[in-house]
């Protein structure tokens, strides 16, 4: 009989050990000096919330993000600076993995009502979260608790990219644009100019093919959506209009550049990153003359290219079909959750206002490779100095003027998957561009109609 008792005792031992650990976590938190400021701040706040009374540090604002490594260090620095700058709020920044796991964290805590006050959101997160009422429109909060001067100074395209169904759902934060990476060695060798149009690139490419040059004139990332949409819109297509009423992906202005890409790949002077994952690899090996990638990838290309003695620079995107220059925005914005109290939401606004102050948005840009989100940020002394020292960052800064966003809609994840599939069908399986784009247009219209 007492043997059974023993088995239970074992179980109790296990449970007690575990419970002890649970209790310990608080202590190890505080003692965890390795964590530096993060650990201390969070343990202090846990105590505060347990006691149920506001501590000296004011209202706690939790901020979930997907920044890790050096980017997280930069966020920590800005957060600390904000916490020191005022006494009403304490922001606790917490990394939740990458964007995908951050989204899962938001879903899970949305169901269990444990959402943070604010979080980073990608452009496909915003409509999903908004349509499930997880996040609040910022219009009212902006007019009451945000410096109008800063708001007006945000680049127009950036704010449009955070607008869903005519309401501002997010605040632009970590934004990147597409830039042209240039291998200066090959440019010099071939005696060509850095191109301003795709026609010039095609000329250079065809010439290289003719000369039997095995290098590629033009590289694109593994998925060409952004380049395609950019070229199509430069060419006069709407692509997907802001009010979602028009989709002309299958129209002539959109099919033309896709055919152009397909031909370039076919002729052998253009390629996608494909099995190499990212174009930064082949580019830093000196195998590519030009490639279009995210401006946030600058830090990534630098060390490998330097090692291989590849001298390189960046330039503004080439234009297709003689249209106006245009680049699409990528990156992420900040959203505020509806579960947060009024006070917390106000705190979130104060924090965002702080992040968007010229010196801070400039600092964030300099630390991470994103671009400042306000005019004043770009023109700030620090950032101008930075551009002088880092001429490669200049192309992106210049593009902020005409950077624009794709409209937000529910189902964009599905739409992106279909795009990728269509791209494979056209570039790998060699399916007819006109037909595939036409089908894609129909499917996109259907997704938009079903979800919005």
């Amino acid at each position, binding site marked *: 009989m007492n043997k*059974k008792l*023993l*088995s239970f005792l074992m*179980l109790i031992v*296990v449970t007690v050990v*575990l419970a002890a*650990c*649970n209790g*310990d*976590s608080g202590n*190890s*938190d505080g003692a965890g000096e*390795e*964590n530096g400021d*993060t*650990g201390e701040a*969070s343990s202090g706040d846990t105590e505060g919330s347990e006691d149920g009374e506001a501590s000296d540090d004011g209202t706690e604002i*939790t901020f*979930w993000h997907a920044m*890790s*490594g*050096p*980017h*997280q260090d930069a966020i920590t620095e800005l957060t600390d600076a904000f916490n020191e700058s005022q006494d009403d709020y304490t922001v606790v920044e*917490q990394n*939740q*993995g*990458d964007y995908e*796991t951050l989204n*899962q*964290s938001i879903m*899970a*805590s949305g*169901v*269990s*009502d*444990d959402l943070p006050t604010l979080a980073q959101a990608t452009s496909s997160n915003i409509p999903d979260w908004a349509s499930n009422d997880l996040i609040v429109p910022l219009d009212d909060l902006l007019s009451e608790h945000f410096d109008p001067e800063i708001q007006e100074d945000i680049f127009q395209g950036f704010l449009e990219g955070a607008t869903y169904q005519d309401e501002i759902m997010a605040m632009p934060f970590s934004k*990147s644009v597409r830039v042209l990476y240039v291998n200066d060695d090959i440019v010099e060798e071939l005696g060509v100019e850095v191109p301003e149009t795709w026609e010039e690139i095609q000329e250079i490419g065809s010439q290289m093919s003719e000369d039997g040059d095995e290098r590629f004139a033009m590289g694109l990332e593994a998925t060409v959506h952004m380049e395609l949409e950019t070229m199509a819109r430069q060419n006069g297509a709407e692509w997907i209009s802001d009010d979602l009423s028009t989709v002309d992906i299958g129209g002539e202005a959109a099919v033309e550049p896709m055919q152009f890409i397909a031909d370039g790949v076919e002729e052998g002077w253009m390629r996608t990153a494909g099995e*190499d*994952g*990212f174009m*930064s*690899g*082949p580019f*830093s*090996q000196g195998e590519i003359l030009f490639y279009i*990638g*995210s401006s*946030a*990838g600058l*830090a*990534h*290309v630098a*060390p*490998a*290219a*330097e*090692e*291989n003695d590849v001298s390189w620079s960046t330039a503004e995107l080439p234009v297709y079909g003689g249209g106006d220059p245009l680049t699409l925005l*990528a990156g992420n914005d900040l959203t505020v959750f509806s579960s947060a109290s009024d006070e917390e939401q106000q705190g979130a606004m104060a924090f965002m206002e702080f992040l968007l102050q010229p010196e801070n948005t400039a600092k964030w840009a300099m630390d991470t490779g994103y671009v400042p989100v306000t005019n004043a940020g770009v023109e700030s002394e620090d950032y101008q100095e930075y551009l002088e020292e880092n001429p490669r960052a200049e192309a992106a800064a210049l593009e902020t003027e005409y950077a624009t966003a794709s409209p937000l809609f529910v189902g964009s994840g599905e739409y992106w998957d279909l795009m990728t599939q269509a791209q494979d069908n056209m570039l790998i399986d060699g399916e007819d561009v006109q037909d595939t784009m036409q089908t894609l247009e129909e499917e996109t219209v259907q997704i938009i109609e079903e979800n919005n």
Partner: protein
Amino acid sequence: MKYLTGKTATYILLAIGAVTMIIPFYWMIATSLKTAGQAVAMPPAWIPDPFQFGNYLEAFEVTPFGQYLFNSVIVTGLSTFGEAITAILAAFAFARLNFYGKDVIFAVLLATMMVPGELFIIPNFVTLANLEWINTYMALIVPWLASVFSVFIVKQQFQSVSDDYYYAAKVDGCSDFMFLWRILVPMSMSAIITMVVLKAVGSWNAFLWPLLVTNDTSMRTLPVGLQAFTTEAGTRFELLMAASTFVIIPMVIFYLIFQKYIIRGITNTGTKG
């Protein structure tokens, strides 16, 4: 002569297989010592030149690996230990006791393995949130204190031990519980250690769950630290592999320590025959 050629063939085949098994592991360590440019070179460089031991230092600077290591040891240690206990107890009931509902319960347990774990994430998160265990060791450990797979392995091994031992033990006045711990468990060490090793490796490498149920850096485990080297524009492979090597070395050592138990198997006389 024939015997010898047979052995030689065995060794040759095993060696060929071993090479394919070891390439990724070798590549991981080689890359961890490469420069940034070499790490992405195509075709890849087999031998790093020069050896960049600095990658390890750089990787350590990026994340608080000390704290992560501490958490990983606690979480893996306790959950593995706990799972071994629950699995041994349950396996005993399935292997040695005849009770009502046995087949049904076993079938239900087996059925739980057939549902994709991707569906469990949200309900389990909500359960832990209701228990107020989010961001505690409890959330990292308790859901993993039992596994049907482990019960399955241990049960299978228990079944292969002869009934004679059971009767002999009974005659000696040994209770079921004593029989289990004094005789059955020592005789089944190879299966139990195998289960422990598989479980420990799985727990050590778990990424998604520890990330979801914790928020503070101070509660995170080693694999979470590995994501620090990937950005939107690419991955710093040399740093990632340096960190990965560091993360898995404890598991390799753990395996090497316990390997002899796995090889030894069950004492031959112990089987029914």
